[in-house]
């Protein structure tokens, strides 16, 4: 009698466990599926390599800045708020370069001419790379512009900001990714 009851308990536990695993799997997969497409704070920023628009090197990779804090900014000339924050980045780029914090802006226009024209007009000197086919944009899961990723010296994402930044906030985030020395 006790034996039978024990058997029943084991049977029930096993069935429930199998069901729990299946449900857990479904929930887990659906949530990681959503999140895989979009990078989160704390993730390692994927490496990329793109042609430059205004740099002595032909191409720049994120790995070229290993050990430094990097702000990766996604922008385009047809994005008005992106244009507004460019002068702030220019201002702070010079200030933070000495502190080993780099700014790398990934442009998403199709035509390089438009970009060069814009850089001339705004007097931008920090490195701009051209993601003509939107590959890096896809890899980072960028949907809205501007989008900025503040990457720690160890390659992890410290902060991700969708939308425009003010000068103060931008400076605050740059502060956060200064390498310790």
């Amino acid at each position, binding site marked *: 009698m006790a034996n039978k009851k024990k058997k029943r*308990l084991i049977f029930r536990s096993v069935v429930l466990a199998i069901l729990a695993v*299946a*449900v857990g799997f*479904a*929930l887990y*997969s659906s949530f990681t599926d959503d999140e895989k497409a979009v990078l989160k704070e704390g993730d390692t920023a994927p490496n990329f390599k793109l042609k430059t628009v205004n740099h002595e090197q032909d191409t720049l990779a994120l790995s070229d800045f290993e050990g430094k804090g990097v702000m990766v900014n996604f922008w385009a000339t047809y994005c008005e708020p992106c244009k507004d924050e460019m002068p702030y980045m220019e201002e702070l780029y010079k200030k933070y370069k000495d502190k080993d914090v780099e700014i790398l802006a990934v442009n998403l226009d199709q035509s390089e001419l438009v970009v060069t024209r814009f850089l001339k007009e705004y007097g931008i000197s920090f490195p701009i790379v051209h*993601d*003509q086919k939107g*590959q890096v944009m896809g890899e980072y899961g960028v949907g809205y512009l501007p989008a900025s990723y503040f990457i720690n010296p160890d390659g992890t994402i410290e902060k991700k900001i969708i939308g425009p930044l003010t000068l103060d906030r931008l400076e605050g985030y740059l502060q956060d990714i200064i390498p310790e020395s």
Partner: protein
Amino acid sequence: MNKIKCECGHINPEGTVLCEACGKPVEENQHIDGNNKSKLLNMRYDGSARRSKTYNKTIVDKIWNFFSSVKVGVWLIAITLIASSLGTIFPQEMNNQSPLPAEQYYEENYGMAGQIYYQLGFHDLYGSWWYMILIASIGVSLVIASIDRVVPLYRSLKKQKPKRHETFLKRQRLFGQAEYASDQDYHTVIEQLKERRYKVTQENGHVLAEKGRFSRWGPYVNHIGLIIFLLGALMRFVPSMYVDANVWVREGETKMLEGTEGEYYIKNEDFIVEMYDENDERFKESIEKQGGSVPKNYQTNAVLYQRTDESLPGVDPELEQVKEGEIRVNEPLKIDGFAIYQTTYQLNEFKTMTFKLHEKNDADEKAIGEFTVDLVDPKSEYTLDNGYRVELYDYYPEFEMKDGVPSSYSKYPKDPAFVFHVYPPGQVEPEVNFLAIGSNLDPNGDNQYKIGITDLEMRDVTGLTIRKDYTLPLLGIGGAIFMIGVIQGMYWNHRRIWIQPKEQGFWVAGHTNKNWFGLKKDLEKVLEGTSVEPPEDQQELKE
């Protein structure tokens, strides 16, 4: 005291309502099925002991019993239905056609209600955790409720004996006493039962005639099908089992196939659309009804490549051609489990524009020189023959005026505008020309030269869907088993007829799980040629 011994000698498990062997009501358990001494017996699950109603000790038992309840199952389905209908109040995130992110879209468009809608996850209902838990709970309830019912029912139907308790027979819906029936009648009835393909078992003159027992398993077969179907749906979360992605490819362009993890690339060599001939008598009427031309065929002539180097985003891949073919609607190109379908297209995107430079006062507009501008990635300088030079000073792919300043709405050359600087030979100061579709401005008003559009090159964009689905066989099998279960339960009935010999004549009782009319007809036929009256329907009598 767990087991219940019936007076017929059969030992029943705890919670039994009607003795498995003889059907005698177990006194202390009549409340379970709401039986009342003066009423007909509730024959649900043949009065077997549904375990869920008896044990309730450990936490495992409590969870088990929760999901085992049909009431809980029905509530889960009802809640899911209500939630699903609430999810249609505002558009789902994937269909809202808005550039705004979901966290802003719902609040801005629908105010407070929209905000709540978004917060509760109704904007992406099928992806929200609580909706998934609801669906999963229905699945769990399906499994547990089935196990808890099919096992005792099976046991009870297997253990049943031809000899039934008098109470059991008296409290069947179809019951009759044939006191004047003869031995001859008794044998005729048995013969006629066999003729009507009843399975007859006898025990000391007691008769059980049974037909279509397997229809009782219909609902459980049906549940097994559903569970397999749900498992198939679950498998869709595994990327190696299921991929459904879209990609737009312009003519001449090579693009990565989404969903293949960067392994395959596709080139759109040519995109072709053929329309039905509007002058053809056969089609004229329907085309008019449709209100425009109707495509007969659209196809992409494509080349498939496989990447041979390590992928690093941004770096152009090394590709090796693996396949070539034409993709038409319902005629996909297949590779490595992936099928690439033609889904949609956009025609006539601007690719290049050709301009000519001529003297402003020349009535014939004779070309001094011609040049072609690539609208996706234009060059900045064009040198014409005879020493003229044109600089593309600024370019707006999709031109608009914003606060009095020319700008571009997007990066796609949908409505291009140009600022050209023309340098005639030997001149240092350029002439400025502003050109857009339908307008040609001379900002300073003293230009000697003019630029005009002479030619346009268009190209088409093909919309492809990449699909891989290894869950289909599972869904197919699940669906088939589901249907078999439905048919099994719907088109067959489990009919039983009992005959109990008495000192004078015999008693007849009948039970079926559905279609009482059919059982009554059967009884009429079986009793034909005997002195026995067909049993009365005790339920109808009462009403």
